[in-house]
């Protein structure tokens, strides 16, 4: 019974209170945990099991050992998609993080001597931060549709602009794999740079000003200050961002599915989705398991490579 209906003498009894506590805990956890277990945990566990079966959507799923993985090994289309995905995994984080860091540095520290302070953002830095973040609040599906139009060969923004200066633009998404990859990278970086600008700005803003003043008095220029002061001090954030961006690049699904025609190139998640659409459920989940292993391996490598002594300040 709720406390207000419980008689005085029982209400403060230790056993009653313990019971009341557990009733509350169970009552509050039951629904969230049930949802979570049914719709998140169980599909993940099932996925690993189904990756060893020939399941095609029906009630029957025969255990076939490593057949799906063997099939994947011999499937050229899988390797093609993996090549694109791995290229994204390697290039997208570097591109996005370098640009993000550059902008963040300009925004937090580029306006040196402004307002008589040793370190300050360039003029209008708050406007930059707001505008750069625009893509981050839009749906990936919408971003993909917009950029699909931007890259359109005949009626796209880019080729329309090239037309005006008398250049015949290429068919960005028309069939050339390299151009397709460049387009994909452009959109991925475009949509994430604003996020990293904000993230790195926050990290850079937390660095004490007197460190910068000391560097300045020692005669360090802007580039030196960046490499010898800023970067080491925000290294933890950079590493986390690197992992996060890598996994995002590996998960690229909607942009590729919506923007890039299937004959040009596809990333592994799109390849997985197509196998699912064909009814090859077992095979599709096996591809998912490989993606999971790949993202875990990537995180571990970055943790290892990027491991430096933490600097306290």
């Amino acid at each position, binding site marked *: 019974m709720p406390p207000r209906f419980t008689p005085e003498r029982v209400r403060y009894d230790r056993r009653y209170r313990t019971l009341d506590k557990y009733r509350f805990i169970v009552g509050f956890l039951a629904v969230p945990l049930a949802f979570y277990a049914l719709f998140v945990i169980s599909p993940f566990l099932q996925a690993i099991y189904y990756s060893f079966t020939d399941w095609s959507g029906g009630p029957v799923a025969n255990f076939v050992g490593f057949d799906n993985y063997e099939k994947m090994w011999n499937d050229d289309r899988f390797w093609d998609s993996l090549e694109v995905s791995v290229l994204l995994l390697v290039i997208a984080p570097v591109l996005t993080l370098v640009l993000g860091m550059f902008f963040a540095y300009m925004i937090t520290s580029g306006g040196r001597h402004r307002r008589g302070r040793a370190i300050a953002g360039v003029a209008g830095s708050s406007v930059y931060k707001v505008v750069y973040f625009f893509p981050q*609040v839009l749906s990936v599906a919408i971003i993909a549709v917009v950029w699909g139009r931007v890259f359109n060969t005949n009626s796209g923004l880019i080729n329309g602009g090239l037309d005006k200066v008398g250049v015949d633009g290429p068919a960005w998404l028309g069939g050339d794999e390299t151009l397709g990859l460049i387009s994909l990278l452009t959109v991925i970086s475009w949509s994430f740079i604003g996020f990293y600008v904000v993230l790195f700005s926050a990290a850079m803003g937390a660095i004490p000003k007197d460190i910068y003043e000391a560097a300045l008095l020692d005669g360090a220029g802007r580039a030196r200050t960046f490499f010898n002061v800023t970067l080491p001090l925000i290294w933890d954030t950079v590493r986390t961002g690197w992992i996060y961006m890598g996994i995002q690049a590996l998960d690229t699904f909607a942009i590729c599915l919506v923007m890039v025609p299937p004959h040009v190139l596809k990333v592994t998640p799109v390849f997985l989705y197509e196998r699912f659409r064909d009814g090859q459920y077992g095979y599709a989940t096996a591809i998912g398991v490989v993606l999971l292993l790949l993202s875990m391996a990537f995180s571990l490598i970055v943790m290892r490579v990027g491991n430096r002594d933490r600097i306290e300040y």
Partner: protein
Amino acid sequence: MTTTTTTAPQPQPQPQKVSSSAVRREKETGGALNVFSHAFLILWVVLAAGPLIWVALTAFRPSAEILSDPMGWPASFHWENFSNAWNKANIGQYTLNSLIILAGSLTGTMLLGSMAAYVIARFTFPGNRVIFMLFAGGMMFPVILALVPLFAVMENFGLLDTRPGLMIAYIAYSLPFTTFFLTSFFRTLPTGVQEAAMVDGASHTRTFFQIMLPMAKPGLVSIGIFNFLGQWNQYLLPLLLNNEDEKSYVLPQGLASLAVSQGYRGDWGALFAGLAIAMLPVLVVYAVFQRQVQAGLTAGAIK
């Protein structure tokens, strides 16, 4: 575009001599590099906002003009693009679907997430840590792995292609981060108030709803914005779980399919108007709450 202009701050020619008067000097001596850096900052404003402004302008142009001169200025304002998009291209229906689903899923996520987080953060009981790790672990797995079995689970429950089904899926996949974030938030709240409420005879439930939830408001706002944008923009889950009837599509899904079908029908004006309609509300929400949105999303992504 971005690939050609990868630019880290380049080394400056020589270390500058800095006297104390130089520190206070307004003019920067970086010269060319400085001009270049500023130009690049401004260029990126154009690149970040350009495609969006292009969509907004093009939404007012007739289809034939868009095809012949993609970069042109709207000669006259064709408002009928918007009514076509809203009525004929179903954008109105898609928006309504998105709103209904979001109303259910966001309420559910916030309620269930804060309930679970509160219990995990403020009570000691056997399995407390295990449950916390269970939620935290869920953040690390790619959704695409769960895709196929999730489809089957939903089918078994008869939730495939239904609104409640989609709401439940949104809630379930938002729970790991919501619970994780709110657990650490509830932990930071003072214990004294909770104890005082108990002494005054308030039940646990009452303490939660009337005392702890109001105290947790800043945390709830951050994670609420995070979930609002995440669920409003969701594409993968509806594509998988709600693909049967075109009338039931949510907004991003509807626009993606519209982009494909416009290739045959050729009403590009309506497509651009639809994109503008879809982008405008989130950009307005962002413009108003930009500080909270930026804080919420960056806190959201980096655990």
